[in-house]
């Protein structure tokens, strides 16, 4: 961090021109509301993934051998690389939040771009894996080969594509919002440098990463 002039205390609101909406008393209350709202939204997301993960956990317990057999066809190395890529993107995002709080607009934009690049790299690797799965006739509903992968293995792939699919969808949404944010920060659209908005986006992005940190062992490593 190059910002030696940053104030020592973490109070980045109130000392600037951040816009206060009419129904709030002060900036502190406004920031607290945004933050609590985001956390509550993430609670919703936890249950969204939790529903399908719970279902998968039951199927996984009941049909463990078939699930383990199916899991063999996943590429552990690619999954591990992807985990690393995503963790790096989280780091970039955390730095972007910091930069935004310090009102370093150019830094913020570049770090957001870095996050977008890393997130896209993740999606690229994921897409490569999916295409590979397609060639291996592993996609239920499109070309699943019941002869090659007998028994209940198809259930693993149904859950695999559902879970990674909704995770990827969350990433795409995050990347789109990040791109919009980067443009807005670049054009100095936010009165307060977008610190609150980027902080909330950061929470969302970290959440999406954490979901992957759970998905990776559950899907890739269960046969180990």
């Amino acid at each position, binding site marked *: 961090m190059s910002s030696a002039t940053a104030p020592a205390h973490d109070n980045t609101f109130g000392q600037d021109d951040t816009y206060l909406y009419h129904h709030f*008393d002060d900036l502190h209350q406004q920031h607290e509301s945004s933050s609590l709202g985001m956390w509550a939204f993430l609670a919703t997301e936890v*249950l969204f993934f939790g529903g*399908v993960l719970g279902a998968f956990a039951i199927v996984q317990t009941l049909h463990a051998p078939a699930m383990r057999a199916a899991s063999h066809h996943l590429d552990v190395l690619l999954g591990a690389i992807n985990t690393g890529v995503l963790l790096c993107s989280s780091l970039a995002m955390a730095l972007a939040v910091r930069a935004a709080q310090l009102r370093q607009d150019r830094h913020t934009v570049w770090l957001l771009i870095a996050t977008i690049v890393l997130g896209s790299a993740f999606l690229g690797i994921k897409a490569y894996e999916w295409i590979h799965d397609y060639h291996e006739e592993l996609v239920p509903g499109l070309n699943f080969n019941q002869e090659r992968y007998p028994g209940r293995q198809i259930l693993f792939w149904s859950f695999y594509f559902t879970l990674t699919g909704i995770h990827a969808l969350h990433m795409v949404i995050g990347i789109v919002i990040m791109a919009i944010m980067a443009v807005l920060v670049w054009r100095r659209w936010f009165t307060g440098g977008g610190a609150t908005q980027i902080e909330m986006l950061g929470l969302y992005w970290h959440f999406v990463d954490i979901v992957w940190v759970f998905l990776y062992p559950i899907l890739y490593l269960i046969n180990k």
Partner: protein
Amino acid sequence: MSHEPQADDPRLVEESDPKLGYLGSDFSIKSWLLTTDHKRIALLYLASITFFFIFGGVAASLVRMELMTPRGDVFNAPDDYNRTFTIHGVFMVFFFLIPGVPAVLGNFLLPLMIGARDLAFPRINLLSWYIYMLGGLFTMYALVAGGVDTGWTFYTPYSTMFSNTQVIAAALGIFIVGFSSILTALNFIVTIHTMRAPGMTWLRLPLFIWAHYATSLIIVLGTPVLAITIVLVAVERVFRVGIFDPAYGGDPLLFQHLFWFYSHPAVYIMILPSFGVISEIVTAFARRKIFGYSFMAGALLAIAVLGFLVWGHHMFVSSQSMYAGLIFSVLSFLVAVPSGIKVFNWTATLYKGSVSFRTPMLYALGFIGLFTIGGLTGLVLSTMATDVHVHDTYFVVAHFHYIMVGGMVMAYLGGLHFWWPKMTGRMYSEFWGALSALTVFIGFNLTFFPQFILGYMGMPRRYYEYPEEFQVLNVMSTAGASILAVGYLMPLIYLPISLLIGKVANANPWAAYGLEWTTASPPPTHNFEEIPIVTGGPYDYELQDRADQQREVQEQGIV
């Protein structure tokens, strides 16, 4: 907390009319469709929810007409009947019962009751109305143009592999409207946490607020599970992936577990806000502090938590393990206890009160009676031995209508009448109000009480045709439904009329206690001329009466 001066952007705080309050700031349609004022959004919801209620109600009338005779006659084919009861179920559950009280009364009153200028996220509030309308109209199109014949429960594998109707479109519509619920609930949670007026501590919150807080928690934690379940149904339908299909080793019961994990708590989403409404009305018309405030608030949270642990009582005959059944059964008995506490305490609140029988109170007393019957018949369903017999019969239909219609709709109408002067600044006709409350109560009992007997006699639900021995009770039920319909039509007529010719209401026409009654009727756009400072607990009618007496004495002294 330091109070900084507000941002002085004139676009944000609209000038409000001194007489018409928030209603008079701007009359253009655009100002309504782009409003971020929680009170105007509440009225948008009121209009759209009424519209969907009528839609679902017409479907219900058709269903009841069909059931007048044992043979199919109103509909040409069973398919049309099945589509109609699906319309009734989907619209009443997802577009009326779940959003009803929170989106209309909650939206309007929550900031007023805690002394805030608006909800924490006014634009998200407006967005959630648009999402609600999008989901509603989309589902309406799917159900009317295409038709869906699965019932509102979408049981697999019928919904995924066998039904040839627009299941995916309907599922998408319900998925969309779920977002609307979630956004409203998020808004409520954040508002209650961060926007309370100075002095409004947690234990000074009106029970209406506690009820909405508990409801919002259930919505935030339950709705996403329904969302993912619906996504899985749609994925299964499109790609035949087999998660719920035994042909691939999947399990249809998994759907039922996921579905009821949301849909049982959803029952509490429907009824908890009503508990809040009834607590406000009973205290106002008994002029007493609520009996056992902390138990009432605790009971709301207990129901919210226990409500998540009883879903399996919908599955006693589904071939679920009997050990799971035992646990779900005993927990279902336990969840009845906090509901019982509420009824006990409402009754105790009347004791040594000063009771007046205005329209909202009539609705509230009706609610207490009907909810008690609905709750206690629930015990028949949580007892495994009797549930085996009455599961999926008209007994279940009668039970949940006692909770939903006898409970939620009575409370909704009671609350609407109670706060109508606050919302509109006009009084409705007390005569017609009382008559409608009475008509609804009588019509309701005549409609649904016979269904308990029908159910125990063994008539299964969702039957287009039925054996002749069930006809007498069915005719009674249909006759009751026509009275009920008249009862519902009355407010639809006299409430709008009151806007034109009703007496102008003052700020507090019921002499009720609570912050919402301290501001003008209708309130100004920014709710309060000055943010109130709260010094006492809720429902302090004694204090209010003493103050009134003192004022009278003083005034008389001056005269």
